């Protein structure tokens, strides 16, 4: 019941916000997202006490009985982690948007809340069709956010983004339907889209069929993350989108792809994973190397973060795809989840910093910046903490996830781990170098007017993000606890052939 209300609540608020005039809209949106956060924390405590709590477990209402499609949602540890990420980041994102005045705020904030609904839906859906619908629903608000409030050349860029993701999704739909028609016909005279039924159908397929399904699904997730060679939409879209949109895309939406790998790909086609897992890992590793190299030569800070995001997500995807039931390297799976959570927080902090740089100095070009440390020390400290999280320094949130991921990949293949490890080293290089370029050195004419004060709202956002970087770095146990059983269970489902 609570699971369903986590989906319903943002939708209701989105409607209300849509009809709120002027300034009230954004405040109401913030309140709404905080209420949603409260509800998800409540769900979290329930889950910790009793993972089988009836208020969280399967809600299953027939939606389209004639096609065996149900509104089936469940909250388990894995879903909880991603729902928490969503409900935690949305208030931060809304708060961070306060420094800009967007035209037509009621629509803007209504779209964000609408998107939250879809995102939560993706993470809790247990019906293949429902999952697909939420997956597509998430695309519509972000498309309009990028189109209506984006920067230069947004028409073409957002369009490319839309086509790419839709392209992937349609193949996912075809793969899901293929699984669906292989499920047994139930009492109501139709096949079933229930997740467990799809798993069974997937396991029963021949190796060739599994490979088709595997690649159909992988394509959708790979475009969303994105993984080389489906990444070309990403840097342009991230840079062109309004920062709020970029945060939604990189902080949360990207996790739809990695989550999809975990829940909807690996357990669906174990045979194909064995046959093709290596290829997927290689693609992920290529995107790590490629994106890291690209990040090294970027001059625009926002674009640099965009590429670094590809590198990070490449590692997540490598960690997931490297899972093999024989080797039992569940560290990769756990690490991927922890890293999804951490990456969401860090990347939002970094994009916010990029936004502040642009807002205050008028540029994001690293070479034109410098010496902000002399102007604003508080900002420098926050930036340093968030950057440390991003380069995965021990005792920051980025460390645990990347450590587990590389551990998982290492058990799969030493060479893959060696190259995947590059993400940490090269990541440190380009992040530290850009920190150096922006913060240290002589203050110049551009950076002199950065201002020594931060507004309340900026302080709040930076503080929340920096605090999260440290808190989850020092004490990740609450997250690891809720994951433990469910990851083991997931691994079991992959092992069954």
């Amino acid at each position, binding site marked *: 019941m609570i699971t369903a209300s986590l989906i319903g609540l943002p939708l209701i608020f989105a409607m209300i916000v849509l009809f709120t005039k002027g300034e009230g809209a954004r405040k109401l949106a913030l309140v709404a997202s905080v209420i949603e956060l409260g509800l998800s924390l409540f769900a979290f405590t329930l889950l910790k006490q009793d993972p089988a709590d009836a208020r969280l477990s399967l809600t299953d209402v027939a*939606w*389209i*009985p*004639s*096609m065996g499609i149900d509104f089936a949602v469940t909250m388990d540890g894995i879903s909880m982690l991603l729902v928490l990420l969503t409900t935690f980041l949305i208030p931060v994102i809304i708060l961070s948007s306060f420094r800009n005045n967007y035209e037509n705020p009621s629509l803007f904030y209504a779209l964000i809340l609408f998107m939250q609904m879809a995102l939560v839906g993706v993470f809790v859906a247990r019906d293949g069709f429902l999952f*697909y*619908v939420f997956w*597509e*629903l998430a695309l*519509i608000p972000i498309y*309009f956010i990028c*189109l*209506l409030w984006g920067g230069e050349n*947004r*028409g073409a860029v957002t*369009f490319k983004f*839309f*086509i790419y993701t*839709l*392209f992937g999704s*349609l*193949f996912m*739909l*075809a793969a899901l*339907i*293929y699984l*669906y*028609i292989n499920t047994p016909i139930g009492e109501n005279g139709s096949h079933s889209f229930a997740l467990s039924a799809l798993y069974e159908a997937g396991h029963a397929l021949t190796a060739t069929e599994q490979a088709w399904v595997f690649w159909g699904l992988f394509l959708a997730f790979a475009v969303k993350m994105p993984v080389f060679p489906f990444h070309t939409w990403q840097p342009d879209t991230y840079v062109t989108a309004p920062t709020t949109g970029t945060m939604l895309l990189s902080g949360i939406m990207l996790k739809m792809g990695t989550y999809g790998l975990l829940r909807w790909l690996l357990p669906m086609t174990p045979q194909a994973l064995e046959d093709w897992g290596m290829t997927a890992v290689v693609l992920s590793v290529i995107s790590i190397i490629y994106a890291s190299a690209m990040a090294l030569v970027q001059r625009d800070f926002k674009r640099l973060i965009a590429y670094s995001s590809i590198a990070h997500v490449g590692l997540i995807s490598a960690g997931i795809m490297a899972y093999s039931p024989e080797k039992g390297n569940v560290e990769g799976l756990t690490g991927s989840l922890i890293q999804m959570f951490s990456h969401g927080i860090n990347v939002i902090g970094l994009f916010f910093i990029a936004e502040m740089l642009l807002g205050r100095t008028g540029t994001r070009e690293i070479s034109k910046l410098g010496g902000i440390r002399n102007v604003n020390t508080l900002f420098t400290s926050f930036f340093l903490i968030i950057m440390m999280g991003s380069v995965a320094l021990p005792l920051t949130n980025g460390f645990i996830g990347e450590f587990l991921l590389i551990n998982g990949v290492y058990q799969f293949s030493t060479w893959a781990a060696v190259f995947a490890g590059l993400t940490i080293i090269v990541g440190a290089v380009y992040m530290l170098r850009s920190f150096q370029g922006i913060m240290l050195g002589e203050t110049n004419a551009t950076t002199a007017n950065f201002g020594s004060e931060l507004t309340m709202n900026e302080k709040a956002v930076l503080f929340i993000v920096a605090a999260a970087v440290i808190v989850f770095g020092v004490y990740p146990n609450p997250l690891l606890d809720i994951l433990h059983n469910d990851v083991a269970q997931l691994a079991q489902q992959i092992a069954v052939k």
Partner: protein
Amino acid sequence: MKAILVLISLGIISLLAEIFRFRRALYPIVILGLMGAIATTVSYWWYDDGDFAKYFGGMINFEDSSVIFSTIIISTGLLWFLMSDTFFNKENPRTDLVALVLFAMVGAVILTCYTNMAMLFLGVEILSIPLYVLAGSRKDSLSSNEAAFKYFIMGAFASAFLLFGIALVYGATGSFNLGVIGQVVEAKKEVLPGFFMVGVLMLVVSLLFKVSAAPFHFWAPDVYQGAPTYVTAFMSTIVKTAAIVAILRLFLSVVFDDITSFWMPVILVCVGITFVVSNVSAAVQNNVKRMLAYSSISHAGFLLLAVGAFNAYSAKAIIFYTAAYSVGSILAFAVLTNVIKDHTGGPVESFNGLGKKNPFMALVMTIALLSLAGIPPTAGFFGKYYVFNAALQAGHVWLVILGIIGSLIGVYYYFRVIIAMYFKEANEEPGVEPSKQHQLVMFVTAVIIIVLGLLPDLILGIGSAAEVVAAK
């Protein structure tokens, strides 16, 4: 069947209106009459399928699928009349045009319930002949005349094919009755003469022409663009629905089911060609009306893919697709007629800045285009979904992939309009305010699209009975 009588009566009343001078009252009469026709159609649902629904010595059998498709056709007709008030000049209507449209609808309804080749031919002709006239109803416009002439020549050609096909099939089986033909085909499928096959092929070709599937689509873009926009809306919804039902009753039934290996490849190849040709052509159009014409060809491809699937899901898919597509098209054309007054259509740029000038119209147009593009949560998405489902069940993986690629190209050209509405700066022309009646139509159709997109079982729940069509 009663609906046919109601529609004919309405048509005759329209003709009399001129003589007895009650033209002003005609429009409300037609609207009420259509509502009555819907009511009488729906009432059949509760009758048994026995002899009650058989008419003209069994030449017409008004069964469950007929009820559903007739309801779709007449409801679309009602919405069409509501959006076409200016076409007739509501206050002082052109009664002949009203009568022609009503007669065309009679033909469409006959196509949903024929059980005899003669009725098939009659239905096609009753549907087509008024449309030849309607396409040319702007006498002073060269393009309208061109459209009418082209449509007539090509249509007459297709009708000849149809008639020839019927004659050949009759020659081989000795009957016009579909049931009897089916029995003969089943009994003698090994020894059927070659000219019978030629006859079946001619039937396929003539009906593919009517749904404007490639490669028999060449008339469609010019006719759709040249005809008055309202007539285009009529052609791309009601005519398309009726033609696909005609195919459905003939091919997705027990008539030719024993020789699927003969006609099926033809349809499947046409589907493949349609997906490629229509979408690629639509993508390069700058005229919105012509773009919609090509897109309607692509939708015909989807409908035919469901026929080509030839399984228990086909009929359902077609029912839902026609309903979703008709509503979406009516909405898109309703907005189009308000935005672009030139009856040959206009460039995408005409939509520039509509999001600011008239947010309501921009919103409903977005809903219509999202539905036509097949993006959830709209009805069009489920339409495509059911078609893909049926096709995958039948194993047509490659056609599904072609369909997916076609849909993506579709997104490209539909979204050009959306981008123009929200993203491009408005032009100098003053904003347009649609009439209250048009707003009502737009609102109702938009709501239907969303509701069907959220609860497709509203139609599919009843659709289970329509499997009668596909009973094999």
